[in-house]
């Protein structure tokens, strides 16, 4: 096997791993979109917020320390000590649920029957708000996240694949970050868990009913507002998972929220309502952009990951405007 | 009314039209003609393919088989807007007004195919663009006067009651000064009084402007009174074609309407 091929293979594998990360965010989008028709742009910021909160709890930061110091001239930063990771995760999850509840109470209940585009804009507002709120609460400095997940290249894989290359070529083996593998595993678990949840629990079935037909769901006595709180909490949970993964990988910082943007082309490919679509779309984008950068990117200046996903989605839309799994739109008069 | 004087040569003819959607046949081998100046009705039970027929005539659907002849020429496959520009206007079964605009603007939009000034002149406004705009405003005002909708001239159409919206939609179609006007259930959902008004308008349009009208309508009584000739469709096939008297006494039509298979 030529090193070029092996390199390509490595790129594809890395792409798949990155794709799973995209899928993780896209999953949150799909959950909310299915249940409420809201295209939640804030999903990425929710991941950032969850990650910030988790790190904050872990390290024992005082929330709003900056603001308090500025207002009262104090100098506080940390409580005495940090917190157990598991406990911090639970607490973060609670924060996310409170957040979902507040969001429904304050904003969403006023937005029933609004045009989709208005709802979309609202979530952009929400994204700004949460970003500001997260920064205000925990500070905007880059934080490292350590929840005990292993990271770094897999030495085992490197050793294992070193010999694959043809004789006489220089090849040091395939590089894959163990964290990515973990992430992939967790993502798969998450999908399975969500599927089970929606198939076998009462709430899950209610969610699906709402997704199929709002009116019908209402007539069988499911409170739409409760559903919304549950869905946003679930999305918060997914965001937390995504936040942990992305945070562990590249630190907790603002750019984390930009992964939401990457999830958009994923959704276009996969369709807004399909969980498998989100996964497959993520993988296509992940592999596609890595491969493009690997094969062509270098020639045209690099950093093509910035736009490749969108252009791919655009090109794709030209031929299938309804997405990969969407139904064909028949126009009527 | 002097019929012979009013009705002229064939304006539009459809020949052997067949249309299907993914294997489902909507229209099968339909042929009929529409003569200049007449009021032509298409009737039939629900799902008989009436709306599909209108959609074929105005180019929204493209039939797999058959030809459309307009003003003596075979019509090539066209986009709906090109058909509109040839002088075919229509109204819709479920009102398709531009909800964000006023009555006046909706009617002005109806004139759009006749307006010519380019984007630069439009931006400058003073001069040709304004002249054109005012010229069409006056034209539209005559339609407003004709339909008696002066009081709602500047009301956003979304706020109007249903019957008024139907009237505005007719106005928008008239503003295009069509040679052929297609009306898709112009009286659906109206009360008796509104139906009478609408019938009056349809006759007046035909009479005053000499517009050829093709309409779909459920109210058989109204259709019989209004139309010169009627095409009856059922399950996408043509059942009968002729004057109201001929159609009324046609056995196949009677069977289709009295048959248990469909009810309106």
């Amino acid at each position, binding site marked *: 096997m030529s090193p070029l091929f092996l390199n390509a293979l490595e790129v594809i594998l890395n792409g798949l791993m990155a794709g799973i990360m995209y899928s993780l965010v896209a999953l949150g989008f799909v959950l909310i979109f299915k249940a409420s028709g809201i295209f939640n742009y804030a999903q990425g910021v929710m991941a950032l917020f969850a990650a910030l909160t988790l790190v904050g709890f872990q390290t024992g930061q005082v929330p709003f320390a900056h603001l308090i110091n500025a207002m009262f001239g104090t100098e506080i930063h940390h409580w005495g000590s940090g917190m157990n990771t598991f406990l911090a995760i639970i607490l973060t999850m609670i924060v996310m649920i409170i957040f979902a509840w507040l969001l429904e109470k304050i904003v969403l209940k006023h937005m029933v029957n609004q045009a989709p585009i208005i709802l979309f804009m609202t979530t952009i507002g929400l994204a700004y708000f949460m970003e500001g709120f997260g920064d205000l609460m925990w500070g905007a400095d880059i934080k490292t996240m350590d929840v005990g997940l292993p990271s770094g290249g897999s030495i085992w894989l490197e050793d294992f694949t070193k010999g694959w290359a043809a004789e006489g070529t220089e090849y040091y083996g395939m590089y894959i970050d163990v964290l990515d593998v973990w992430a992939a595993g967790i993502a798969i678990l998450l999908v399975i868990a969500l599927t089970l949840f929606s198939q076998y629990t009462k709430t899950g079935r209610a969610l699906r009913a709402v997704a199929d037909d709002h009116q019908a769901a209402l007539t069988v006595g499911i409170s739409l507002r409760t559903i919304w709180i549950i869905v946003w909490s679930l999305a918060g949970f997914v965001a937390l998972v995504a936040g942990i993964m992305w945070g562990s990988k590249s630190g907790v910082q603002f750019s984390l929220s930009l992964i939401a943007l990457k999830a958009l082309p994923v959704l276009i490919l996969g369709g807004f309502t399909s969980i498998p679509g989100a996964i497959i779309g993520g993988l296509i984008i992940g592999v596609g952009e890595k491969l493009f950068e690997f094969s062509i990117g270098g020639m045209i200046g690099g950093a093509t990951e910035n736009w490749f996903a969108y252009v791919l989605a655009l090109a794709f839309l030209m031929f299938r405007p309804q997405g990969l799994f969407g139904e064909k739109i028949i126009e009527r008069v | 009314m002097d019929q012979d004087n009013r009705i002229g040569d064939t304006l539009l003819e459809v020949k052997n039209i067949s249309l299907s959607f993914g294997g489902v046949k909507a229209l099968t081998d339909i042929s009929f003609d529409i003569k200049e100046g007449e009021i032509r009705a298409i009737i039939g039970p629900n799902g008989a393919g009436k709306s599909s027929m209108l959609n074929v005539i105005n180019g929204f659907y493209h039939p797999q088989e058959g030809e459309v002849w307009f003003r003596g020429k075979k019509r090539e496959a066209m986009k709906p807007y090109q058909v509109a520009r040839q002088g075919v206007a229509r109204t819709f079964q479920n009102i398709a007004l531009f909800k964000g605009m006023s009555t006046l603007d909706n009617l002005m939009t109806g004139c759009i195919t006749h307006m010519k000034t380019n984007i630069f002149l439009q931006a400058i406004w003073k001069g040709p663009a304004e002249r054109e705009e005012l010229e069409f405003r006056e034209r539209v005002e005559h339609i407003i006067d004709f339909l008696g909708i*002066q009081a709602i001239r500047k009301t956003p159409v979304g706020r109007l009651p249903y019957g008024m919206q139907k009237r505005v939609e007719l106005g928008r179609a008239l503003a295009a000064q069509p040679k052929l006007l297609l009306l898709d259930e112009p009286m659906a959902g109206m009360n008796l009084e509104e139906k009478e008004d609408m019938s009056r308008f349809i006759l007046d349009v035909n*009479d005053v402007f000499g517009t050829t009208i093709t309409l779909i309508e459920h109210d058989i009584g109204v259709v019989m009174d209004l139309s010169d000739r009627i095409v009856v469709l059922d399950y996408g096939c043509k059942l009968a074609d002729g004057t109201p008297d001929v159609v009324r006494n046609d056995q196949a039509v009677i069977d289709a309407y009295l048959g248990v298979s469909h009810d309106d």
Partner: protein
Amino acid sequence: MADSPKETSKISNDLDTFPKLLLDHAKKRPNKDAIREKDLGIWQSWTWSKAAEEISALANGLASLGFKRGDKLAIVGNNRPRLYWGMCAAQCLGGIPVPVYQDSVAEEIQYVLDHSEVRFALVEDQEQVDKMLEIYDNCPAMETIIYDDPRGLRDYDKTHLHDFEKLQDLGREFAKENPDYLLQEINKGSGEDIGIFLYTSGTTGKPKGVVMTNNNILITARNSVKFDNLTENEEIVSYLPMAWVGDHIFSYAQAYVTGFCVNCPESTETVATDLREIGPTYYFAPPRVFENILTTVTIRMHDASKLKQKMFNYFMGVARKTGVDMLDGKQVTAKERFLYWLGNILVYGPLKNTMGFSRIRLAYTAGEAIGPEIFDFFRSLGINVKQLYGQTEAAVFITMQPDGEIFADTVGIPAPGVEVKVNDDGEVIYRGPGVFHSYYKNEESTKETKNEEGWVLTGDAGYFADNGHLKIIDRAKDVGKFVDGTMFAPKYIENKLKFFPHIKEVVAIGDGKDHCTAFINIDLEAVGNWAERNNVGYASYQELAGHEEVYKMMLESIEQVNKDLSTDSLMSKSQIHRFLILHKELDPDDGELTRTGKVRRRIVAEKYGVLIDALYNGSKDCYINTEVAFEDGRKGSIEATLRIEEAETFTPAPATKGAN
């Protein structure tokens, strides 16, 4: 036709006919707007010169059809420029315009047209053409019908029909061949000529054709213009029937005298909006219209926020205190002036703007008594509403209120040039330049109404108050007597009650009885509104009318009126002792009202005889079954048992004089 050439070749200097005035305006102010009509979304305007051109073309057109001196031209339709032009065009040729109420049914029109031997008719649209064709064969003199709006007339047999514009084209052709004809005809006209027939609607019997000379109309118009300093800059909205003498004076004669601009609304439904757009400077409306405006204002303000209502009520209070005085030119304190100024910014100005009265300089009301609150409301806003007293036979003006001497319960001093007095029977009579020529083909009535010295009976009972202003009590023939001989003026009592917004109509009974009782009609809009606000449920008019609380409300009003009457020595006997609320609205379709909304006492007395008996025999309630006509012409009947209530009466207090 044997006029000397020098007389026909120049425009006469004495502007004693409408056509001469028209030519004069066309020369003096050719580019000033003479008339406008809201049509096709904008105010289409015609300058005086354009109007003169249009009228000439029409007159020539008429001439080409054989319209001769003395011919009559019927005019049927809403106020539209072309119909006004028709009047002048007929006058150009020495003809007589005969405006007819446009909402009359065919048989009513037939009577007028037949009676006045109309040969030509100028009508508005298809609706009127249909009426004309219906009566065509019954009017032997009738020849030609000219229509303004050709819509729907395409397939009509055109033997007798002419399109207005086509007729004008004919006229322009005719003018080419006979260039001097029209001017000659115009110059033949004089002030002594018969100018117009105005048919009175007539509460009883057939309408009478009031014949007016040009002098009657024009001198009166000139006098009134001078009295109120009207100028060529006035704007007026003409929306009252052209057949009514008021419209003829305000929208035609005064416009031709001064050269001001007349604005015709788009349709009857859009009068309010059109009025608002134009913002007239000069306005006429019967009290009913002012009352409706005030009711609308009150109802709309009910929906406003509490704060806004407070502000509104506060400043309306200020206006009531100060506004009328300021309008009458009396002294007010600086503080009051400031508050009024503030109120003008916050309330009066905007209010006038929404009503279309921002630019109003002068408004008149007449025809009936106006409620003092209504009158003061408008005056306190700074709208100079005045009352006048007039009738067709006088070319409107008998008395007018001069600026600064405005009272709600009197109708002013004699108009310029008019002598007014009260005869021995207590009836108001007058003499002056506007007094009509005669009733057409009705020598007998003419003599009955107008004596040899030119004094005309008004048919109204009244007296001059101490300040020299005339006070009208009632129709002379309606004034009756109680058994003890004291005067009973039902209209006077009824009007006092009708000023309450929740009372729509009242019939006072007392002639030949020993005391006064009354039927009451509630005002469905006002009472319904009240019911809505107070959560009073009702399913029908009848149920609402019979409601306990409604009776209570009426009782309060009646007792208030009784208290008021008790202070007036002439009227204290007329206090209402018992009353009932009618279960149905008095309706012209049932013959209970005239078309102009006046009560037909005789019919009411016949129809509701049992109720009258019940009012006087002391019973607590009374059953009645009434026949009614529905809107679609079907007949039906409604039955009800009506409750009768007693009202408190007050012993006459010593009269306080001059309480205006």
